[in-house]
């Protein structure tokens, strides 16, 4: 029991400083609040269970975000598969769009789903979670330049898509409908 308690203390000491960043990452990519909570809990559990295997505690951040990345991707893949039967999606009306903030969050989430995984993760980690380029490179197993390219491409694609969306919304308001 003592060993478990000490393990827990060590884990919490390392985890709590990055908790907010991890939570933001998961929340940005996983739209549903309950699902996002599940992913965060699952990440914490998996990280805690394999914590003893972690040799260098300095690598905790990349260790934690790698686990989170895997779980988020797993969730998104499943969501894609079951997405055919998503009634909310079919109605194009998310139930928790109750404020301006959540509307913006939803818009960002939709835009991010159009990007390749590496790009979406890179931009969220950099812009939302506040990870450095080096940290992202370590997690993704790539170079800093690679991360820079990914972030830059992601920005371009997102900007273009948002612009298109804006035009479409404006035309829809005027009563003109276009095939996307």
């Amino acid at each position: 029991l003592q060993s478990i308690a000490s393990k827990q203390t060590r884990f919490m000491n390392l985890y709590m400083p990055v908790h907010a960043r991890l939570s933001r990452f998961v929340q940005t990519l996983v739209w549903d609040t309950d699902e996002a909570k599940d992913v965060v809990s699952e990440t914490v559990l998996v990280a805690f269970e394999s914590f003893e295997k972690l040799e260098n505690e300095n690598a905790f951040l990349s260790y934690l975000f790698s686990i989170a990345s895997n779980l988020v991707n797993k969730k998104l893949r499943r969501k894609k598969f079951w997405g055919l039967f998503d009634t909310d999606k079919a109605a194009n009306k998310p139930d928790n769009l109750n404020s301006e903030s959540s509307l913006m969050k939803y818009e960002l989430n939709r835009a991010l789903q159009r990007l390749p995984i590496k790009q979406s993760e890179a931009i969220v980690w950099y812009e939302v979670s506040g990870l450095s380029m080096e940290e992202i490179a370590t997690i993704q197993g790539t170079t800093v330049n690679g991360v820079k390219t990914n972030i830059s491409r992601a920005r371009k694609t997102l900007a273009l898509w948002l612009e298109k969306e804006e035009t479409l919304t404006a035309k829809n308001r005027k009563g003109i409908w276009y095939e996307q």
Partner: protein
Amino acid sequence: MSNKLNQLLENAKDENPLLTENDIISVINNRSLLGKKQTFFTLKNILMMSVISSILVGLWIGLYPTATTNLAEPLQAPLPAINDSLEGTLTADKLLTSANNYRQPTTAKKATTKTEPLQAANNFRHLPQANKKQETVLFETTPFIPLFNENPIDDNHNYFDENGYLILSNEELAKLGIITDGNVLKYNTITDTFFNFKENGISETKYTFFSVDVEKHGSRSTNNSFTSDSIKIKQSLPFWASALSILNFPTNLNSPNKKDSTHQLTESLFGFGYEKDFFNEIRPLLVPICVQLKAIHGIYSSDLKLLFWFKTENAFYSALEPNVAKAVASKYGHSSIEDYKAILQKYRILSKTVAFQNGFDSLTVAKLKHHFIELNKEQLKNIGIKLSKKGFHFKSYQNIDNKTQKLDVRVKKHYTSISNNSNSIQRKNTPFRAIAISDVSIKHISYLMQLSNSISSSEQEELKPKYFRENIQKLIPIKVNAKNVIWFEPTEELKRIVSPK
């Protein structure tokens, strides 16, 4: 636009964490108490399980190769007991003894397999002997009898089933014009039926075209009379008046959605003009060929048995395999055209008499002919008759049983089609009610009267001719063309149209 992106990203950055520190601690604590998550169905476990189970099955089959044959033996024991009980001679003691007899061999075999594995292993070593034994058992239960043998067979029961119907292969059936693959069937033929003949000045040479189709979507049989269509006659089978009868032909299979229980099974006699007496008389001169169609799930509840009756003529025998032809000839013999003609002639005369009984005498016909009304095209159109180059088309609507019944008559050179259907949509009720359509000699009459559905069809069949015969003097006969007359109810509207202005 990057401003908007920045705005969205800033908004996401300001989000509060979903879980608090306490939540995280509780998650970890709960997990620690539960222990490490373990999954049973890993790839490793599944592989191990499948290997172990296959080894066990292999050992079971290898050690007890004769287990299945041994199980069959005790089934022979209870048969005498059942027979005895049926005769009412079996006592309670006997019943108990027979029950024990039934149980003993099973328990004995079980004991052998359980207590003496070495003996079972010995059986396994003497595998050829065991196999020999198995083969013997198989031959006893399902003897193989070849359907057609290269050597001539004196005993011809192989070609006939228990009812004496001839059984042929699909290839041989195809030679007789019956095309089947065991599930579906197609058969077309043209015959000279005894109702239609050329004799004593009646210059109608009519043939009848019969078609039987059993398809996966349903079944259909058609029976169309037509005047000398030389192309179809040339394409027909070489057997003069190929006779056909179908037993248990499903009449109501056109809709596969209907349940099987609603299908009616009837006997249809094609090529005999539905005349059973004639068929019974000619039957000894015919060979019944049985075609068995396997049940198709959702369409036929049980297998279909179709019987095709062929005349024992030389043309028929020449289409069969020599061995089969020999066997059939020894059973049914040969018949000549004269034999058939003699029977046909008898029924033709009968049918002629019947026709005269149903018709009118020449004096009445002459009188009626005098009253035929001829109208111009416009007048005919007003009462619903449209003339065309090949014939005419007549349509009328009547309200019966709170429904609108539509009568649709199409008369063309080679055929007359009369359809009668009803629907609940109310339409105009035309005041011109047709009772019958006939030829100018009032010999061939088709009744167009529309009666309530509450009257049974058999009653309607009686009522219609009776009404026509009794009221013929009152009815208004309108001569549509040189051949046809439509007999109308004398309504005021019709009288107004036909009366001379």
